[in-house]
């Protein structure tokens, strides 16, 4: 794995999308102040922000970044990992800011919130990434699947009271979502 390229893509895209990232982080912080208890706000809001950040990686929004990355000597899977890291890091920032705001009102629940929210955010974000290189119904389907992942994660964490099951489920989903995205990106024709 080319770490320099990974960090280059991360820095380049986070800089280009800094306003969206700032808006997501602000929304998460405000939600953390307003609704500090329970899993609903951190899990669904942060997953939604992750899905929005994933969709912000769609080709055409930053054409010069797209062209540089398409022309760079990187394998599809390397580019997929680098591009996947961007929304995951941005959404993780949002989840941590939510937890930071929560700690001001309900410090006891912070560690659990971080674990539950991060697991759901990463699974939902990686699933939504496959929507970025698709159009129409299949794009909507991937976004719906990503949203459904958050629902299942919430069911496991809050309904079944099993954080371990939620984290395990999200880890499996994230693994297959990243593989799927890498394979799709390797076949993708940028026209």
């Amino acid at each position, binding site marked *: 794995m080319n770490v320099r390229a990974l960090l280059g893509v991360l820095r380049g895209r986070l800089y280009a999308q800094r306003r969206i990232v700032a808006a997501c982080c602000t929304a998460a912080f405000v939600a953390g102040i307003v609704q500090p208890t329970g899993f609903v706000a951190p899990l669904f809001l942060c997953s939604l922000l992750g899905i929005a950040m994933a969709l912000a990686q769609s080709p055409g929004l930053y054409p010069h970044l797209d062209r540089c990355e398409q022309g*760079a000597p990187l394998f599809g899977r390397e580019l997929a990992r680098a591009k996947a890291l961007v929304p995951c890091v941005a959404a993780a920032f949002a989840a941590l800011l939510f937890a930071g705001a929560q700690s001001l009102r309900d410090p006891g629940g912070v560690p659990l919130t971080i674990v539950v929210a991060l697991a759901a955010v990463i699974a939902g974000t990686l699933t939504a990434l496959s929507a970025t290189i698709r159009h129409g119904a299949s794009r909507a389907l991937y976004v719906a699947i990503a949203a459904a992942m958050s629902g299942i994660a919430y069911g496991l964490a809050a309904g079944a009271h099993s954080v371990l099951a939620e984290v395990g489920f999200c880890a499996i989903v994230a693994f297959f979502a990243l593989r799927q995205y890498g394979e799709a990106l390797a076949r993708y024709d940028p*026209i």
Partner: protein
Amino acid sequence: MRDAAFVRDGTSVGPFTLDLEEGERAALQCDAPRDAAIAALLGCGIVKASSGCVLIGDFDPRVQSVACKRLAALVPHEPLALDDGEFPRYVAYRAALWNLEPRRAHERAALLRKRLAGMHEAFAFPLIGALIGMPKLVVLDRPQPAYVRHILDVVAGRALLTTHADADGARVFAPNTLRFRSVQA
């Protein structure tokens, strides 16, 4: 390129046939701007040919795309609007993607920027970005004819392929323009 064509969803570009050695240059004149853009992507191995073949060095983009991308660099048609403070960031980004030593990439970029003095920055920056990876083939998608002197100067010694949507632009970049008419699939 040997009968290299791109055909998909009603879009048909090519077939193109041409040989280009190091130090040589060729201009492809296409029917429409979109065709010229696709021809440029085909020429540097970013898009795979639907039929025929493209070889960059000894590599086929369909199976050795990473090796092809080490040899060829694309300069897109669209200008790159960056301010002076963002240019070093852009060079660092390109250097990271091409796994280049950052210090050497910045030195090379500064040198190229001096040589491209007089060329509008929005057109110079993508060209500099493409050249810091020291490609053997440079592909320019519809370059500005006004900057032909600058472009030929910095690209000298490398193979240069330009694509155009008009005859005048193509003639300026290469004396022997290859005109291709797209065949409907």
